[in-house]
């Protein structure tokens, strides 16, 4: 590898670029390869199901073959799981529900 190639590789991102190459991606014939930086920049939109301009398959393919980026996707997923877990079974207290119903009944009975 030349110095210039190595420099380009370093500027492309800090994740184990040896884990796959663009040549491998092209050979697979499945998806257009995207770089580590592109995949990382799109990780939120990918997990939110809100990708704009990049097919979901391309991002998924990158994470599936890149050992450097994959842990970042997993951590992002675990983080979201933690947020979801933090509010499980959080229901409105019964006395508040009753108060709301009483308020609405009083409001409905008022002449307009």
């Amino acid at each position, binding site marked *: 590898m030349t110095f210039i190639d190595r420099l380009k590789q370093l500027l492309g*991102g*800090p*994740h184990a670029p040896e884990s796959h190459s663009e040549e491998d991606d092209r050979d697979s014939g499945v998806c257009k390869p995207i770089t580590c*930086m592109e995949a*990382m*920049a799109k990780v*939120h*939109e990918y997990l*939110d199901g*809100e990708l704009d301009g990049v097919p979901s398959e391309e991002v998924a393919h990158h994470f599936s073959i890149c050992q450097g980026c994959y*842990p*970042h996707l*997993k*951590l*992002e997923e*675990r*983080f*979201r*799981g*933690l*947020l*979801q*877990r*933090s*509010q499980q079974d*959080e*229901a*409105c*207290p019964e006395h*508040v*529900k009753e*108060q*709301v119903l009483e*308020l*609405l009944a009083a*409001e*409905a009975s008022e*002449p*307009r």
Partner: protein
Amino acid sequence: MTEPGKGKIQTADFNEEALPHMDAVFRFALRLSGSRDVAEDLVQETFLRAFRSWDKYTPGTQCKSWLFTICRNVFLRQRERGQRHDEIVSENVDRSSGPFEAVNPVWVKAVKADPEGEFFDAIVDEKVLQHIQELPEDYRTAVILSDLEGLSYQEIAEMTDVPVGTVKSRLFRGRRVLQSALYDYAVSMGYIKDTSDET
């Protein structure tokens, strides 16, 4: 003169469409305010206001988002009235405004010590809620609506009256701030080894 039976129809529609979202509105109010007492008041005020303006609601549209919008407006007005000037300034000063890197620096550190993210399992729910509460309001609202309630970018944009790009930016920044705070907490508790000094 009131149209005969209109009030009953309105009440029946409201009961069917709006009331099932009471749990969701309570959760939203709780995350937004960080206080059960405030959340209980917000739920009551939200449903009362929603009932009074039910004729402005288009049946079959996103009722939950509509209720969240009312709830947030009530919360912001109450906060504005109760908040001292120095608190408002303090929140503005604490906000991050610089650009974020595509690669999350928190995950770069975490990957070295715990690539599976098992440290998340040790973080108790109260700490998560505390750190959500500490986010600036616009980041907090975006994170709650997207990550906890599953609303789309477009729905959040309409609710908060900002472009979709702003929603994305708030989500990105809000998540990063929250991730950093939770990681620091996990390090301080010994749930994950600090790898900051490792190269």
